[in-house]
């Protein structure tokens, strides 16, 4: 088991960032900035400039990919040289009082590998989108949002400040909202967007509370800042020494609050309801945001603040963990429960994307559990592999939907194997990777690492059994889906067709990585673990032959084959009619109904949270109308009466006098006006006459 050991590493890190940062980290901000700028430019483009919009956003993301590959190479070369990388650039955003709010970005193995993943998967999905969105009239808007999303997500990845991370986090949430509601003319899409936004906000409120608390406690929101960052020894000690309620330390409490935010974004158990509905967005959006990247942001966040979550973990003398923390226990249990819960629901869904969505929720649960049990490397490894094969599955599903003329119900497909061979092969690879088919697929190794960590955990045993059951369900529902879609007789309305090259090429690339990525994390050569942990671990093929490991291998293989077999037995080549009840429904209708209805979570929320808000809104409305409205009306009435009184006074007293005076004046004026006959020369004459008189008087009076 590996641990990030702050105490020993701080010195090395300080040296690294003090010795004049090399160029890479200084240009790190370009990685998110370029897609955001591209998005701004696209926003200004006219609707028909589709080609330019696509070129801009793909080009910008490609550039970001190049940059992040460069950064990654830098990190890898440092790592190969035995120096773990942690380079930061921090700057003050603003001051208030004596405190300053700092922002900054960071380059470390975690950020580097995540940035590469986001850029790479994102780029493939962008390319795929060109084909998928070809006939949409809001093509430019789509790419504008996608670019903005990519930029914001990369911002989350490289942020070295919890505040900057939160800002990008909210930007990501906004773009998610925009993209889910991309087809806002569909009421269901608009509702789904709203739901996603509100649900994630619930988590974000806790997250914000955690941030504020952290700032109040440690005085900084920077993660790493030459020893004074909030994740470094000094601040952690301070946080540990401070006790919150219920026996929690401040570190634990803040960790739990942050986890609430992560749970909202990553669809963990109480807040998972938005993610399946989010499938109303276009399929590339589902692939990019709701499978590969954004939902993984929660996991990434937990990985990022792992030192905080694990603060206070008792260690053995050799640095091995000898216990765990409350925060990690909560993370583990929530993750494991989510994994099983979502997998159960996925079994009874009929919408191709909804199955994948629940599968995503379930896999995110795995990642969380992996983080809680095995540390950063375990959770992140599954995150990376999952990003690739889940993106592959979503894109494959998109290809299927595209090929079946926007049909999403798996019962109305079937037999597509023959019509869409490329999609079928890649989809099958993705499906096997997700199921964890032994040895050859990346999913096997990453999931196995989680199971291994769960099995080896000395402190909490329950999650292991939950996760194993989840793995069985995963294999089962994926088999069910593939059988429905690709095997049996064709049940679709129109003639299915293969998707264009621009869509299948990304599928192929993703499929390659869905297989190949396993190589970086096998127990024989746990490169990924070393890379993230910055520590050497024992390696060699002999590790594969250890008894413990073999036992575990056998268990998971059996589980997977059990799931696959069960699925094939129930659904293989049956080609039931679309209206016909499901095979499982026939076998166990009492089990089926609650699963189909998503275990009534939405309904539960409907009668509790939403009902409460509705009632509260009614109360407020009544109060507004009756109480406040009454007061306002009374005041208005009083003033109106006063005005009436005034008017009467004016009319009879003031005006009467004035009118009389005016009449007199006008009569007098009429008499005088006869002099003014309107002839200019008469006036001039009178004037001249007056001058004569005046001068005569003057001279006469001045006579000596």
């Amino acid at each position, binding site marked *: 088991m590996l641990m990030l050991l702050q105490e020993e590493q701080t010195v090395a890190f300080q040296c690294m960032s003090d010795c004049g940062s090399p160029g890479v980290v200084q240009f790190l901000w370009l990685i998110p900035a370029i897609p955001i700028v591209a998005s701004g430019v696209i926003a200004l483009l006219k609707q028909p400039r589709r080609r330019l919009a696509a070129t801009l956003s793909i080009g910008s993301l490609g550039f970001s990919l190049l940059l992040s590959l460069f950064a990654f190479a830098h990190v890898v070369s440092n790592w190969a040289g035995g120096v773990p990388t942690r380079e930061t650039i921090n700057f003050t955003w603003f001051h208030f009082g004596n405190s300053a709010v700092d922002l900054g970005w960071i380059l470390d193995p975690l950020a580097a590998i995540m940035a590469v993943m986001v850029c790479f998967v994102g780029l493939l999905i962008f390319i795929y989108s060109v084909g998928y969105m070809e006939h949409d009239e809001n093509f430019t808007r789509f790419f504008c949002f996608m670019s903005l999303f990519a930029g914001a997500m990369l911002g989350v990845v490289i942020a070295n400040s919890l505040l900057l991370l939160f800002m990008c986090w909210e930007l990501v949430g906004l773009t998610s909202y925009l993209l889910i509601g991309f087809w806002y003319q569909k009421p269901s899409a608009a509702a789904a967007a709203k739901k996603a936004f509100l649900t994630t906000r619930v988590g974000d409120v806790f997250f914000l509370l955690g941030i504020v608390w952290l700032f109040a406690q440690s005085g900084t929101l920077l993660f790493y800042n030459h020893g004074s960052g909030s994740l470094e020894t000094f601040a952690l000690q301070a946080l540990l020494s401070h006790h919150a309620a219920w026996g929690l330390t401040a570190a634990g409490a803040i960790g739990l609050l942050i986890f609430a935010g992560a749970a909202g974004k990553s669809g963990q158990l109480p807040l998972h309801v938005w993610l399946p509905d989010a499938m109303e967005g276009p399929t590339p959006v589902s692939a990019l945001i709701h499978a590969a990247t954004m939902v993984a942001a929660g996991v990434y966040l937990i990985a990022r603040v792992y030192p905080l979550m694990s603060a206070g973990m008792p260690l053995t003398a050799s640095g091995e963990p000898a216990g765990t923390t409350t925060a990690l226990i909560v993370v583990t249990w929530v993750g494991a429960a989510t994994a099983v819960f979502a997998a159960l629901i996925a079994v009874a869904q009929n919408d191709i994307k909804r199955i994948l969505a629940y599968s995503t929720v379930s896999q995110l649960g795995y990642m969380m559990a992996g983080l809680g049990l095995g540390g950063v490397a375990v959770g992140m490894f599954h995150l990376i592999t999952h990003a690739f094969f889940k993106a592959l599955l979503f894109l494959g599903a998109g290809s299927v939907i595209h090929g079946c003329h926007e049909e999403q119900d798996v019962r109305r497909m079937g037999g597509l194997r023959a019509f869409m061979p490329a999609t079928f092969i890649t989809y099958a690879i993705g499906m096997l990777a997700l199921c964890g088919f032994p040895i050859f697929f990346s999913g096997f190794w990453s999931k196995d690492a989680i199971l291994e960590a769960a099995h080896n955990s000395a402190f909490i045993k329950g999650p292991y059994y939950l996760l194993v059951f989840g793995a069985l369900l995963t294999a089962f529902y994926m088999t069910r889906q593939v059988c429905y879609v690709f095997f049996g007789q064709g049940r679709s309305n129109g003639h299915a067709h293969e998707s264009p090259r621009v869509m299948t090429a990304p599928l192929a690339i993703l499929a390659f990585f869905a297989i190949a990525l396993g190589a970086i994390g096998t127990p024989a050569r746990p490169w990924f673990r070393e890379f993230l942990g910055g520590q050497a671990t024992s390696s060699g093929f002999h590790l594969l032959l250890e008894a413990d490991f073999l036992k575990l291998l056998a268990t998971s293989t059996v589980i997977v084959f059990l799931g696959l077999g069960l699925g094939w037995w129930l659904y293989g080549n049956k080609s039931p009619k679309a209206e016909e009840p499901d095979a499982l429904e026939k076998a166990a209708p009492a089990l089926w109904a609650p699963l189909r209805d998503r275990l009534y979570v939405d309904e539960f929320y409907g009668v509790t949270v939403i009902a409460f808000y509705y009632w509260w809104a009614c109360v407020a409305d009544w109060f507004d109308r009756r109480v406040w409205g009454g007061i306002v009306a009374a005041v208005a009435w009083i003033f109106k009466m006063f005005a009436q009184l005034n008017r009467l006074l004016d009319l009879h007293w003031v005006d009467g006098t004035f009118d009389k005076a005016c009449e007199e004046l006008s009569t007098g004026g009429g008499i005088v006006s006869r002099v003014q006959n*309107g002839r200019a*020369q008469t006036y001039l004459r009178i004037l001249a006459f007056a001058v004569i008189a005046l001068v005569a008087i003057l001279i006469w009076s001045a006579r000596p």
Partner: protein
Amino acid sequence: MCSPLTGYLIVAALLFSIGLAGALVRRNAIMVLIGIELMLNAANLNFIAFWRYSPHPEALTGMMFAIFSIAVAAAEAAVGLGLVIAIYRHTQTTDLDKMNRMKG
């Protein structure tokens, strides 16, 4: 008739009277304006003459008065003629005998 100023004053008085007579006896509004301009000019001549023969010509009082009077006269002519044109547009005449709608 010993002072050189007297001659100028007589000329100015004559000019003023001629201008006034013109303004009083002519029918045409424009001619009335011209008469008024003549009266103004007569006054200017007086100012300049008094300035020239005043004990302190370097104080420039009369001169300034004349210069400002010229400027004001220009403004007066512009507005007056503008009015005449506007009235002509309405009534198709510049005959003051026919223009008596100015009464209250």
